[in-house]
């Protein structure tokens, strides 16, 4: 593979040493800044500017303070965030002396119930082996601190602000999505990764203030049936999914940058030799018979950086120490990217959940087994590394 050009941020350039896990088509390091999704150049675009352009940082609110006071205030803010996270955690709810008896929890209704999902951070890949000697690659996903932010019932979907402004690709489609028209499911907003409020704008912090939560880096939304709705402030934990549950993982795929049609759409291109004149990697014809080029014609452009779902992946192992889920197979996205994990929408998985319903609407401390969970919970078909393989004769 040819070595890619060095980016302007020379902290770590892309590796020139070939590694088998790197694909031939390189991934862009910072997709939000380096890719040109639009050809229009506007002054406030977040792109490296030439050195003659004057750039100034916005003046910070605490710029007039001494460094010591600034640090003290930052620690005070972080402590408040930590207190807010600890007070709303499931451990606090279990240990509270004022704990009321559990309210009636909704029952799992076949073909109706759809639970909320979790926000995860994809970390990497760990190989494991089954008890029959077969190898399986597992994706390690970390479940950070997350809380429920808002519940939007199905009737209010039409009024929801972010849905009133349609995304550009909706203009190509003549039908609205079914989850918007059927109004069967509502939207559950979940916030993940609490952080220092000084990192965000006041408008962003205001979203969380209404729910009484500290501001968080990531907001995700899940399509949830009304019987599994969660109210703001509810804690979503690691044990929302059990070992053996099949999940769908939705994430933004790795950004491959601007690619030609041969990589992007697997077109054949032209012959390398035999007199081919300047036609080796081109698209060829764009239309036929003098007709217009239709909308959606496959052409070069940015490859990747799209939301895709990996369906029906079983959870093979749960690590309670680092809050990790080991999901079989590979999920979209680069390491350290956010992903959404939810109960699989595949019909065979839904039917199997009717027989073995998961904790509804989510996992609470009262669902814990006696003695708590061990550090590692393995799927019965999975072979832990400290056990020898015993094949049947």
């Amino acid at each position: 593979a040819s070595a890619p050009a060095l980016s302007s941020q020379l902290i770590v350039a892309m590796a020139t040493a070939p590694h088998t896990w790197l694909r031939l088509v390189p991934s862009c390091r910072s997709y939000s800044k380096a890719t040109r999704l639009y050809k229009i150049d506007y002054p406030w675009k977040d792109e490296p500017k030439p050195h003659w352009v004057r750039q100034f940082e916005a003046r910070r609110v605490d710029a007039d303070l001494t460094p010591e006071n600034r640090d003290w205030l930052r620690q005070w803010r972080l402590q408040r965030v930590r207190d807010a996270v600890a007070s709303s955690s499931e451990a606090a709810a279990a240990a509270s002396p004022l704990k009321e008896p559990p309210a009636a929890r909704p029952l799992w209704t076949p073909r109706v119930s759809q639970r909320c999902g979790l926000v995860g951070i994809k970390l990497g890949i760990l190989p494991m082996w089954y008890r029959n000697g077969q190898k399986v690659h597992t994706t390690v996903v970390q479940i950070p601190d997350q809380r429920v932010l808002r519940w939007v019932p199905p009737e209010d979907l039409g009024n929801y602000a972010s849905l009133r402004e349609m995304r550009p690709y909706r203009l190509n489609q003549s039908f609205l999505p079914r989850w918007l028209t059927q109004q069967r499911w509502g939207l559950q907003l979940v916030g993940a990764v609490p952080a220092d409020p000084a990192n965000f704008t006041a408008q962003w912090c205001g979203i969380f203030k209404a729910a009484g939560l500290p501001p968080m880096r990531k907001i995700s939304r899940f399509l949830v049936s009304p019987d599994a709705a969660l109210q703001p402030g509810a804690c979503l934990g690691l044990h929302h999914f059990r070992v053996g549950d099949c999940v769908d993982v939705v994430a933004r795929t790795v950004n491959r940058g601007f690619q030609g049609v041969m990589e992007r759409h697997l077109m054949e291109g032209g012959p390398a030799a035999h007199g081919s004149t300047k036609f080796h990697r081109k698209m060829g014809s764009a239309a036929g018979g003098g007709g217009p080029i239709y909308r959606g014609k496959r052409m070069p452009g940015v490859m990747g950086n799209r939301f895709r779902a990996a369906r029906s992946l079983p959870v093979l192992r749960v690590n309670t120490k680092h809050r990790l889920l080991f999901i079989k197979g590979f999920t979209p996205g680069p390491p350290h990217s956010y992903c959404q994990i939810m109960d699989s929408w595949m019909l065979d998985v839904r039917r199997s959940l009717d027989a073995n319903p998961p904790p509804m609407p989510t996992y609470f401390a009262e669902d814990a087994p006696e003695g708590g969970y061990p550090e590692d919970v393995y799927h019965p078909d999975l072979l832990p590394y400290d056990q020898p393989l015993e094949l049947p004769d």
Partner: protein
Amino acid sequence: HPARDATSAISSSWQLRPVPGLQVPLRLPSDRRPPVRRFACPASIAAASAAASPAVPPGPPLAPAGIARVYKPRLSPEAMKEFWRLSGIGPDHSRAKAADQQAEVPPEIKRLYQEALPPIVSQDYRDPIVESLHRAEMMRRRRVINIPEFHVGSILAVSVMDKHAPNKVNRFVGLCILRRHTGLFTTFTLRNMVDQVCVQIEYELYSPSIVSIQLLKLERRLDDNLLYLMDAPHSHCTIPFDMVPEPYSRNDPVPVNRERVRLNPPPWMCKWHLHGYQGIDLEHLYSYLSDKDVAKAIEFSKAYKRYDLLDQYLNRVPVPDADYAFKDIFIQHQELLQHQQQQQQQSSKKSEVISKLTGTV
């Protein structure tokens, strides 16, 4: 000019952009230009000019004589030495010295756990939790099976589970020609002649279907891989299956086999002259090549990569990361030894109990 200074060769191409929420002073292009130094003129000339012209505002104090020589900002020698030590490159650097600097971890750990080093990939693909999980699982597997220290050039006997074999176990003896990847993905390739047929088998080091790995001969070669043996006479990789293991001591350094292999005449599977192999008889190799190819090979062997700082930076594991990995492994290695001692005690107790029972019965 700062941009041409060796110490700022990398920093001169940085262009820091404002990131909201980040308390970093913005570096403007004016920062890269050297600061303007104003020198005061000597007192005699000042007096003469003051007499000639009206009041002159007092300037900065008189500059010292040697200001021209120390004008460019330089790193102190101590800071430079620290930089070389952390980067692992520089005139004083050598393998032995780097190993001595990591004095807390004994050298046998680095020989036993070569695959504990993190992979050499872009930082975007590396994660400390995943790497620690790899190391923990590696040590868990070593409680079940003994994985000896071996290098490329050593001779191993590997037994794997095979349900179609007569004893359900398939044993293969071969010369290790390749050792790839890190962590739980580590693989090694053994090569041998079986019924006048060259056989190469790649095994995953931490696969549970491996029953045992036995080291028959501990040896090292001059190269990281011996793929050129594919184009060498078969005598170089013919190892008898009933080879008796040769004893070795862990404290002694690994013996290096400095033999130089004479390859078969071309065509070859690969352009062996363009990879810097030291284990090939180069004079014999060049006798097969045209002048153009020989010139190319000689230019490759000029070792210009020794001066390519970025190539060295990208193709090495950072020293702090390697230190951390080996220290983590060292702690788990000591726990493994304790576990093995406990197992031995238990097995000896069991044998005592059994002998007592059989004695009484």
